[in-house]
């Protein structure tokens, strides 16, 4: 039985009679009989709400990882989410709406999209932002496609220090578009060591901070690139206090917006943000909300520059994206509004302060040190003799760090990546250090 079906037997009869159709099955006579005969059910009984609740809660509780203290990063971070965010998101006029095709009934969605675009521009130092992409990885891939379409180049320079799963998604998209990835090494400080830029380069990707948590110096990079794009993949939290890529001539700034008011959610849904210069507005993928006026001169918002998009331009569109990550973008908007400039700076600096306190203490332990000398923000690579042993010790203390294999694709065999947010307490830092000492 389908509990979400309001039609009573009388309703069904009346509706069929109104059409002069004998029964519901007759409504499916246009599906070829051979197809209907081949149909086999999945084998699923119906369940009541209580049974479904038990099943799903059982699954949620089956993951032991949720009870560990997370010093986990690698692109997704355990930041504090003020409850006000969830309460706004549960306003179902916002959460159960579709894409705002009909502007007059969607001023709520279109207004917060406009606010979100403003905030992303402010954080990144860019001129225009879209209303979201699926996640940071696909936002990065789409930025590269944008660079390719603009410059015609087919070579993408990708740092070896890029997070491995970002590179993996980028590689898939690049292969689809006939582009090749060239690796840019890192130096002893863990920072990008850009050499000669090959002919036919469409973009240099730089991650701020990079996959080791190290802050890159973007000074002068754009000048080495000629026509090629400088694409920055940025974590939005450090941007509260770190000079944004827009100040260094970045053509596109993308990133994972999860740290802004969204939980890690076992990797999805996430929030890709993408910002660029007005000169590239017509090459940008995704939805954009713009302010205009109604017939009476009253300010209002519409989805605009839609001629870039698939539903108008079809195979000539700047991207195929349609559904995006709107509700996660709303979470980011409310989060940033709740914190304000001082709150965001506080979150960033708390993470910075605690990460550095922990790093100093770990580096002082015998057998441990820092992998790199470069400046880091709230995540860092620790060098140790026995990373697997260290992970096991931490696990016994109820602490989770990323498995050592995470750094292998980045060329680090003997390291651990440790992330610290404002949620980690003094006591948890003590416990971390004590576990390694034990």
């Amino acid at each position: 039985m389908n509990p979400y079906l309001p039609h009573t037997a009388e309703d069904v009869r009346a509706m069929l009679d109104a059409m002069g159709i004998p029964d519901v099955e007759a409504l499916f006579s246009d599906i070829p009989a051979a197809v209907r005969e081949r149909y086999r059910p999945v084998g699923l009984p119906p369940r009541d709400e209580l049974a479904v609740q038990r099943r799903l809660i059982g699954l949620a509780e089956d993951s032991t990882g949720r009870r560990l203290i997370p010093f986990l990063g690698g692109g997704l971070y355990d930041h504090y989410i003020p409850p006000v965010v969830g309460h706004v998101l549960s306003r179902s006029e916002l959460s159960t709406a579709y894409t705002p095709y009909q502007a007059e009934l969607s001023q709520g969605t279109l207004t917060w999209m406009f606010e979100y675009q403003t905030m992303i521009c402010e954080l990144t130092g860019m001129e225009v932002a879209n209303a979201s992409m699926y996640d940071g990885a696909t936002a990065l891939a789409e930025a590269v496609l944008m660079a390719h379409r603009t410059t015609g180049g087919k070579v993408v320079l990708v740092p070896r220090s890029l997070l491995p799963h970002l590179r993996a998604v980028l590689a898939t998209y690049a292969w689809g578009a006939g582009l090749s990835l060239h690796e840019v090494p890192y130096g002893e400080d863990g920072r990008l060591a850009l050499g000669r830029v090959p002919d036919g380069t469409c973009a240099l990707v730089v991650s701020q901070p990079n996959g080791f948590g190290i802050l890159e110096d973007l000074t002068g990079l754009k000048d080495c690139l000629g026509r090629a794009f400088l694409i920055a993949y940025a974590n939005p939290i450090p941007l509260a206090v770190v000079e944004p890529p827009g100040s260094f001539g970045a053509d596109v700034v993308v990133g994972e917006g999860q740290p802004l008011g969204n939980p890690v959610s076992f990797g999805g849904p996430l929030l890709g943000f993408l910002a660029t210069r007005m000169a590239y507005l017509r090459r940008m993928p995704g939805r954009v909300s713009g302010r205009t006026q109604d017939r009476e001169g009253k300010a209002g918002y519409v989805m605009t520059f839609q001629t870039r998009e698939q539903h108008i331009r079809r195979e000539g569109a700047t991207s195929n994206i349609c559904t995006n990550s709107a509700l996660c973008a709303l979470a980011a908007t409310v989060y940033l509004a709740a914190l304000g400039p001082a709150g965001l700076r506080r979150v960033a600096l708390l993470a910075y302060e605690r990460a550095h306190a922990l790093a100093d203490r770990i580096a002082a332990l015998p057998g441990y040190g820092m992998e790199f000398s470069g400046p880091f923000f709230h995540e860092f690579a620790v060098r140790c003799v026995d990373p697997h042993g260290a992970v096991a010790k931490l696990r016994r203390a109820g602490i989770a760090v990323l498995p050592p294999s995470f750094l292998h694709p980045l060329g680090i065999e003997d390291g651990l990546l440790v992330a610290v947010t404002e949620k980690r307490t003094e006591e948890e830092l003590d416990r971390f250090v004590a576990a390694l000492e034990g």
Partner: protein
Amino acid sequence: MSTIYDHGAPGRRAVALPELGQAEEELLARFPPSLRRREGPRLPEVSQPELVRHYTALSRMNYGVDTGFYPLGSCTMKHNPKLHEDLARHPGFTELHPLLPAEECQGALALLWEMGECLKGIAGMPGITLQPAAGAHGELTGMLLLKRWLEDRGELGVRTKILLPDSAHGTNPASAAMAGFSVVSLPSDRRGMVDLAALEGALGPDVAGIMLTVPNTLGIFEEDILTITQLVHEAGGLCYFDGANLNAYLGRARPGDMGADVFHINLHKTFSTPHGGGGPGAGPVTVSEALLPYLPVPDIVREDGKYRLVWDRPKSIGRVHPYFGNTLVIAKALAYILTLGDEGLREASAGAVLAANYLKAKLKGTYRVPYDRLAKHEFVLSGEGLGDGVRTLDIAKRLMDYGFHPPTVYFPLIVKEALMIEPTETEPREVLDAFAEAMLRIAAEARDHPELLRDAPHTTPVRRLDEARAVREPWLRLGGGCVG
């Protein structure tokens, strides 16, 4: 219309955060000078009540499924069950980091695996990836799978074309182009279905495959579907099925039985997850035997009651998502499938198709139905010829005055002044009747008082908006280097 920036005052805040151990300046002094931000981001400074009231005010200027009838064709705006929202918010899902080892994530992996099994069963196809984050993302994944298949057979660069009916969603050609294919449009015949003669004429050694929407965007089931897929297969191509319209035959037919090689499923349509004002959704993709080796990694397998990740797929296209896909959306959709079971799924499509045909019958004497056949879950009317200069856009805007969200308009492109109506199964008969009544009254108004339509909407927070101005004078953010 105020934005959050119009509220508050310097120094206000909505959250109490922990104190720093050192002074801000001391910490900032540790930064290399080239990295230290010179001018902070301009963000709102508001108190919590201001914040809550602003977003509550915005919500009241919005229309969702929870507000009322939302017959947006091809979008399947059915009710979003509330149980699912609570379940997906469980910290066992939301606070679980995807990079933890598989043994620490057994519950989440079980959830994904179970969803995979359900969707494979529903599609009647042997392989799946849950990675795609939306329908169009699933399409791109499918096109990349085709590309890898061609590469593996040494036909890449030979088979370069994707055939597309002229009624296809815009995402289809855009996705094919992103994977490097060129697109050939196939005309629809007088029935509104794929023109078989045109299909045969287009097929050849340069064709990689076809992308079909079943039922198509006219809401009509492709009655020749078996012939179509057979012809494409015989010509050496593969068949992509766009699953946006799965709600039409859920629980009674399977793409795998129709010759589909790739099929994407929009969980935010057919499987009831809310659309969030534009997203997030989820677009899992099922595949036939031919494409199994190319699916994205990692695969989730179950052995002896344990779940593990398998990376060893040398022919895989790689990752299309940085992790496993939109887990929370998948959790809601799984709750829906488990609640309904096979019988409930079958009832969903029955209710959806019944509602669509019922509405069509009520409207077709007044509105033109360009392709008048048995409808599936949706149907397409034309707004042409209703009254003096009245257009479909006017009908859509006037519907707002009657308290309804308009249908999809001006799509599919093959119908002039199209109105694409998808009522879904979750609307009571009284709502369908009220909507039909409004549509009939609007048709009468178009004849007698066309200005009522041309000036509509009258009751919304804003009147009709000037879209041309939005492009002419782009105002896409507050402050900064743009206008405003």
